[in-house]
């Protein structure tokens, strides 16, 4: 099997619009969460959300290109520009090679709702405009990025709920390991608008700690009361090792293992067995011992059952090994379809800068989180290997293991 390395990263998130900004936000424990009054006017149970700007791409992309892009495709474009630049890949390279594209995305509600509103009000489908169809499809990110960057390898959207971004990276790694692709642009994108998560709010999944938005996302804390929705986009460039060496690419890490499983159980409540299986599979495929893992970026979203069962799964697998476990969702909220990719980048930034960001708001453990080593304050630590979990509705699980290079 061929080796898979990471040669570039880029991000657009509530913690910053570049790797440098995000690194500083992680280091300083900045929260990206606010209370959105618009959501309260719309009847949301919780108006909490991550806050980020929609990029203005006028002057950078043509009017037609922009017309087909919903917000998450714009986030993904900016993240990908940064990732390609860091990987030292220009348009000439993309034009001459069959570069693939696998991106996690699992909704595009805003343009869908707007088109339906137009149809209902005007009874004339032409008035939806030419962009509506391309913006509203689940594959909107990959169709937009693929045409903008002229990518001609695998082109596929991975829809695996909140594990979409992680599965995109894992599946990309498999394609490279088997020699089917030399390079793939991987990532995850998540729209941030009320329509996209209104029905999610409706099932009482969100924290209602509206009087203190920065305290609302509190993974593993005893007094957590739900997740906070977030979003943006994160891109990593993965590449076959020898291919990266030959072109003189900046090799920054290696993807050692991808584990996956499905719970085959409840549609929203996770269990312990499924995630445990995903963790074990990733470690086995990575061919490493537990003690080689220096940091675990948990999926933990700040929900009662989710965090409890993940804590149990992690403890099942690592036992008494002293490995720091945190959830960066304490700073970002739950970035859902993007999370699996963004959390690889957050972990990479920590690994490259020798620290582990604080698990914000971890004030009191519960019975299960007490068994894990969860730092409530940032710690300075060098580590060379991390594990990142992503779990999603329907019981889909993904685990990635990455080693420093």
């Amino acid at each position, binding site marked *: 099997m061929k080796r898979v390395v990471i040669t570039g990263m880029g991000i657009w998130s509530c913690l910053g619009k570049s790797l440098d900004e995000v690194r500083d936000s992680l280091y300083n424990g900045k929260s990206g969460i606010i209370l959105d009054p618009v959501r309260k006017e719309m009847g949301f149970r919780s108006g909490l959300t991550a806050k980020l700007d929609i990029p203005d791409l006028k002057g950078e992309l043509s*009017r037609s290109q922009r017309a087909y892009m919903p917000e998450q495709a714009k986030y993904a474009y900016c993240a990908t520009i940064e990732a390609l630049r860091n990987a030292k890949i220009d348009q000439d390279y993309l034009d001459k090679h069959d570069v693939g594209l696998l991106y996690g995305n699992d909704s595009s509600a805003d343009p869908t709702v707007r088109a339906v509103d137009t149809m209902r009000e005007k009874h004339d489908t*032409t*008035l939806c405009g030419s962009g509506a169809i391309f913006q509203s499809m689940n594959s909107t990110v990959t169709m937009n990025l693929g045409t903008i960057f002229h990518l001609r390898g695998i082109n596929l959207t991975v829809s695996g709920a909140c594990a979409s971004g992680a599965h995109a990276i894992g599946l990309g790694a498999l394609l490279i390991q088997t020699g089917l692709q030399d390079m793939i642009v991987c990532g995850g994108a998540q729209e941030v608008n009320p329509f996209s998560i209104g029905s999610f709010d409706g099932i009482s999944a969100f924290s209602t700690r509206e009087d203190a938005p920065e305290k609302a996302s509190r993974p593993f804390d005893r007094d957590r009361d739900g997740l906070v929705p977030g979003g943006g986009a994160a891109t990593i460039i993965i590449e076959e090792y020898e291919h990266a060496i030959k072109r003189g690419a900046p090799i920054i890490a290696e993807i050692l293992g991808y584990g996956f499983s499905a719970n085959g159980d409840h549609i929203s409540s996770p269990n312990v067995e499924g995630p445990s299986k995903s963790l074990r599979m990733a470690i086995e495929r990575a061919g490493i011992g537990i003690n080689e893992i220096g940091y675990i970026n948990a999926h933990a979203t700040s929900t009662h059952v989710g965090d409890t069962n993940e804590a149990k799964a992690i403890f099942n697998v690592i036992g008494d090994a002293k490995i720091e476990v945190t959830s960066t969702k304490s700073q970002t909220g739950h970035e859902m379809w993007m999370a699996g990719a963004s959390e690889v980048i957050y972990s990479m930034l920590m690994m490259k800068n020798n620290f582990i960001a604080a698990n914000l708001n971890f004030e009191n453990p519960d019975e299960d989180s007490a068994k894990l080593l969860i730092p409530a304050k940032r710690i300075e630590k060098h580590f060379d290997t991390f594990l990142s979990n992503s779990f999603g509705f329907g019981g889909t699980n993904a685990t990635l293991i990455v080693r420093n290079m």
Partner: protein
Amino acid sequence: MEKQELIKKVNSVLAEEFEVEESIITPDANIKQTLELDSLSLVDMVALIENEFGVKIPSADLVKVQTFAALYDYLAERA
């Protein structure tokens, strides 16, 4: 709406939407070429006209409206 006023508004909304200099919009110029419209952005032009002037241009008529002058006349008769 007076025809000169209509022409001014048509030129203004089309230039803004399709991001071209208004000065290149002349009566005899071809609409598709001037605004660089493909089959998809042509749909946006029809939607824009309908939203701004309340006039729907059916496909059968659209093929006859090739120049800006033809568009001004078409709208002047219906707006």
